[in-house]
């Protein structure tokens, strides 16, 4: 999960010229093959989504968002993300503090368990909640008696989403906090700051960009999850359909243009997320280069 582990390190790059020793034709060939590969696997699907969505014109495209079922799907998706992301954010902060700032036995197993949901098949992620909360499952009969609905209702969808997006914030923070060590916090404590104050004033500012990046990844995944949510949703129209599920429904109604319209909205959300991410990285780079410049100036003096 080093997905972005060393992103922090990457900022160094901007401060130096990269040596380019390959002959021009090799460079050209490499750029061409990388763009060709991305074209086949990345840009073609992206283009397909928008072409299909706009096949019946812009009017029909916009019309498909006005449908009440589509609106309720959008609303549910936003609602789910609004719960899942803060939940995993809080968890990510706690877990990274415990793991990065302290040494204890079984740490690597703990980190592996935190990563696990990343590699669990979405089908299984949904199934486990059915086994737990289903009427035939462990808690199902009791819940039914209390008239509490978990699966086939909004709580189940939220739970499955939290499961699927579980590792993202924690895994952004742990490597960075590990790298930063504990000196600054210790200094703050020595100067008489409280634990909570130290965390807020020292640790949090140090990791805020990684944190935001983790939140962005987590949010993107939360909005787009299909497999796990499909198992626990119950597919009640206008009630428990998220946007990805609504796409499938429209597709199954032979309403291809509308299906791709909603899909394109999800794609736009994804692209928006990516733009936000680029902004975050840019900010981070700028901040670090300022810091390095300041340090260099100091050295020069």
């Amino acid at each position, binding site marked *: 999960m080093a997905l972005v582990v060393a992103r922090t390190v990457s900022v160094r790059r901007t401060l130096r010229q990269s040596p380019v020793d390959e002959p021009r034709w090799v460079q050209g060939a490499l750029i061409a093959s990388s763009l060709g590969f991305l074209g086949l696997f990345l840009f073609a699907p992206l283009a397909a989504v928008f072409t299909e969505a706009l096949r019946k014109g812009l009017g029909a495209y916009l019309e498909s968002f006005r449908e009440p079922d589509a609106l309720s799907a959008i609303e549910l998706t936003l609602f789910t993300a*609004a719960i899942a992301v803060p939940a995993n954010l809080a968890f990510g902060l706690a877990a990274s503090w415990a793991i990065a700032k302290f040494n204890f036995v079984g740490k690597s197993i703990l980190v592996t368990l935190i990563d696990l949901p990343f590699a669990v098949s979405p089908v299984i992620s949904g199934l486990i909640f059915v086994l737990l909360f289903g009427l035939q499952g462990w808690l199902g009969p009791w819940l039914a008696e209390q008239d509490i609905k978990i699966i086939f209702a909004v709580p189940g969808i939220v739970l499955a989403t939290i499961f699927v997006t579980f590792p993202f914030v924690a895994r952004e923070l742990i490597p960075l906090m590990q790298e930063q060590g504990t000196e600054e916090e210790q200094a703050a404590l020595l100067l008489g700051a409280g634990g909570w104050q130290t965390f807020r004033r020292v640790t949090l500012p140090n990791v805020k960009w990684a944190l935001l990046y983790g939140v962005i990844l987590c949010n993107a995944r939360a909005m787009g999850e299909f497999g796990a949510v499909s198992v626990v949703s119950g597919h009640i*129209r206008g009630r428990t359909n998220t946007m990805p599920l609504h796409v499938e429904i429209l*597709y*199954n109604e032979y309403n291809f243009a509308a299906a791709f319209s909603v899909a394109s909205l999800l794609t736009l959300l994804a692209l928006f997320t990516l733009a936000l991410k680029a902004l975050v990285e840019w900010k981070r780079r700028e901040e670090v280069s300022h810091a390095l410049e300041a340090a260099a100036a100091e050295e020069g003096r």
Partner: protein
Amino acid sequence: MFISRLTNLISGVGLAMAMVYTVAAKADVEILNVSYDPTRELYQDFNQAFAAHWKARTGETVTIQQSHGGSSKQARAVIDGLEAHVVTLALAYDIDALYEKGKLVAKDWQKRLPHNSSPYTSTVAFVVRKGNPKKIKDWEDLVRPGISVISPNPKTSGVARWNYLAAWGYELKRTGGDEAKARDFVTRLYKNVPVLDSGARGATTTFIERGIGDVLINWENEVLLTVRELGKEKFELVVPSISILTEPPVAVVDKVVNKRGTREVAQAYLEYLYTEEGQEIAAKHFYRPRLASVAAKYAHQFPKVELFTIDEVFGGWQKAQKKHFNDGGIFDQIYKPGIQ
């Protein structure tokens, strides 16, 4: 700090939306109809008609929620706690499962409504490309070498199981009951299937949108809908000489209606399917009506076919499922390594 502000904002929005949700769930009576994939359009119309009928009769406003998906998947969701007041599925086997796995319906559920509890029927037919270039007239033509047949996966699709049984029954009838011949026929048929989509509508998309296959096997109502929705100029309906009478069943889910006190409205909902109005709506959506008067009115819509039922030829769903579709059954044996 901006992060805590962000968190506040997000949780605030969350809370507000949670409140919207609780408010939104208000109506006089609400029932949930859990159905299979190709009935969306039918029930959208029917629900409106029933709501008006119920309002006129009792003054009560009824809201009918809809859920659609693969037939077995839907049944499983109901077993696992999806609160369906009524189920309207593709095959009786799935409603049997509601009794067996969760005692959600009575054992004799199928006897509680007329006509085996299936208010409308259909049959299995073919769609071919315009002009019928491969000259497909009957089941035999589907097993010819070089014909590409599209039909979904019987392991995951209820509709596909009816397709399979229709082919088996055809050959059985033609050969005077020769099981070995029927098996060979179905084996050859599935050799011609290049894609096993997980659901019936996926198979239709493969045939129509992807342009794969010479012929699509599907229910007659779906075929007629496909031809109407997606182009008379591109596709044609072909009806085989012999086919199966598909009987999609409906049932009130006893456990749920007892708990929620909605038996009366749920029962009325299903009974309304059998009335002239209900039958008319079904016929408009290309389901064959049971009621003679409506059937006569829409006779022009449905070609004459010699139909057999699952009870006659296979001894009911339980037997058919066990013999053909369960793990290790005949469908699996067709795909044993070495045979392919």
